[in-house]
């Protein structure tokens, strides 16, 4: 694995440290709970969990501002939570209830919240990359200073849409952050079987795009790299390609028997679990106490339980409304 070495850690205050740990812990427990309710058949369809990759979503989100746009994949619960989407609205969405962030129409793979500029939740690998370029292009045309951040996996980098989007963004100077979460497997197919050049970061410069890599298991490293990327984009108006080396600890989806990787490999990566790592750092720097960690974890449990309650108590959309949202109800453009 390629590592970007750095001497100085990204500085965090006590309050910030706690907030960051809280976010990662919330994603972790939310995902574990989702798996649990999935086995109770409350959630159905595909469910792709983010466990292991929390530092990426949380780290990148710190560099983004309210007005920035975010697009993501079907493995997007972590991004949505880190962006501040209500956990109850996400859980209700996965239950298929009206109170969900997309009225239950989308489910786990299609979380949307326009208010926080969270534009999904796309289940076609690579499908959102061209749209990200277009949104950034619009910002540019409108003279806005916001950044469009597009999360995708390394598997998507084999699709034509990745290459077309990189070229277009560079050609048009579109302010996009191409955020590749390289977790080494596209479903069950390892990087070595899908990319002739496995150092994906080499692909950025061929399009003339500023590029960097970062250890995606280290929150502070991700924060630093993301801040640098976003600063660059805001300053120059040009795209940026950031490759985060990370790992998913759980199966690709709930249907995956994980025949393609060794248990030992997973265990090895778990040693780099971003959450205990960050806890250790906070403790060492005396930014948090064991007691505070315990109460933070307790608070997260309550939040997750409240999200489940919210979803449980949600309502089903009446069948008569089936054909809504095919065309706009409000005919104003």
């Amino acid at each position, binding site marked *: 694995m390629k590592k970007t070495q750095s001497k100085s850690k990204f500085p965090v205050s006590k309050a910030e440290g706690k907030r960051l740990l809280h976010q990662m812990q919330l994603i972790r427990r939310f995902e574990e709970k989702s798996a649990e309710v999935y086995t109770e058949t409350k959630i159905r369809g595909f469910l792709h969990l983010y466990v292991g990759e929390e530092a990426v979503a949380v780290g990148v989100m710190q560099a983004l501002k309210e007005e920035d746009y975010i697009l993501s994949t079907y493995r997007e619960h972590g991004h949505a939570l880190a962006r501040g989407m209500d956990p109850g609205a996400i859980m209700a969405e996965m239950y*298929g209830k009206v109170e969900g962030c997309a009225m239950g129409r989308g489910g786990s793979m299609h979380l949307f919240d326009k208010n926080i500029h969270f534009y999904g939740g796309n289940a076609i690998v690579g499908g959102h990359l061209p749209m990200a370029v277009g949104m950034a292009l619009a910002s540019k045309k409108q003279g806005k200073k916001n950044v469009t951040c597009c999360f995708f996996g390394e598997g998507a980098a084999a*699709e034509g849409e990745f290459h077309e989007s990189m070229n277009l963004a560079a050609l048009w100077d579109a302010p996009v952050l191409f955020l590749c979460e390289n977790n080494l497997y596209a479903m069950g197919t390892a990087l070595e079987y899908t990319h002739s050049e496995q150092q994906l970061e080499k692909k950025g410069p061929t399009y003339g795009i500023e590029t960097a890599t970062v250890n995606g298991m280290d929150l502070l490293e991700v924060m630093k790299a993301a801040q640098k990327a976003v600063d660059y984009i805001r300053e120059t108006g040009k795209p940026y390609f950031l490759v985060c080396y990370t790992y998913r600890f759980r199966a690709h989806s709930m249907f995956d028997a994980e025949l393609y990787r060794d248990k030992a490999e997973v265990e090895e990566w778990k040693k780099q679990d971003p959450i205990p790592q960050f806890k250790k750092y906070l403790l060492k720097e005396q930014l948090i106490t064991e007691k505070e960690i315990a109460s933070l974890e307790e608070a997260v449990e309550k939040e997750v339980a409240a999200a489940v309650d919210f979803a449980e108590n949600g309502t089903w959309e009446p069948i008569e409304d089936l054909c809504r949202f095919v065309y706009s109800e409000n005919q104003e453009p």
Partner: protein
Amino acid sequence: MSKMKTITYREALKSAIREALQKDERVFLMGEDVGHYGGAFAVSKGLLKEFGPGRIMDVPLSESGFTGAGIGAALAGMRPIVEIMTVNFSLLAMDQIINNAATLLHMSGGQLNVPVVIRMGCGIGRQLAAQHSHSWEPFYAHVPGINVLAVGTHEDARGMLLTALESPDPVILFEYTSMLNLEAEIIEDAGAVDICKAKVRREGIDLSLITYGTGVYKSLEAAEVLSKDGMDIEVIDLRVLRPLDEETFLTSIAKTHKALVVEDAWKSVSISSEISARIMEKAFFELDLPVERLCGVEVPIPYPKHLEDASVPQVQDIVEKVRKILKP
């Protein structure tokens, strides 16, 4: 009577792929996750070990690229089976399928035929929401130059691929993922089946129920329910959506004088539109009543179960529709 055996739809598909690989050195399987993962739906599980990576090729997420490569390999003498994980992703490969596979023979004045077989998982009913619940049978059936097969039964799951591989021209197989675990009896030595005729799956005299894909077992089930009410329904499995075998359903209508077409796909510009038009053109005077259709509701398929179920015809919907037609 030949001896019967019980087999799942998945096992039927897999044994056909195995047999094809054993029989013909030119055959190879290429697709996302067909090897190390064991197939997105476990259809090719174990085949990598048995046949090696030369014949069971994991490919990157590049639908247009690898489908085009399959077409190229077919042009140059191989017999690739291209697996597109699901029909939803075939939209990315559509240019290759339609602009290359379907047209080369014609554009080259008959010089270049493309013996490629493309398998796609499809179907609605697993709560996968709008981007993963497409029914593109009508889309592909619209295109001259390709053969479009709907694998609606275990017999066809076992047999269609083998015949498809003998076709000189491109063949698309729609395989229904909701049926993978379903068990059924087929004859012990089941093998290749024809890929040119529709099939009467149940004989009856009161109404011709014309369908394909997941509609076949649903319609047979509905026909059983209706038989208890004294209604004798003929169920026709179209099987081949292009080129369409008209004879089978026209013959049936000459007997029943009533027709209902059932499919999951959206109603407008669908297979049922085509069937209905052909009946009107060729059997108008045989009809006692207008042709009826029961199709997918025209909405992107929503995630929640109750809305998904309401989006496509269920057994009960078929039963009610037939009752309305026959006993108004």
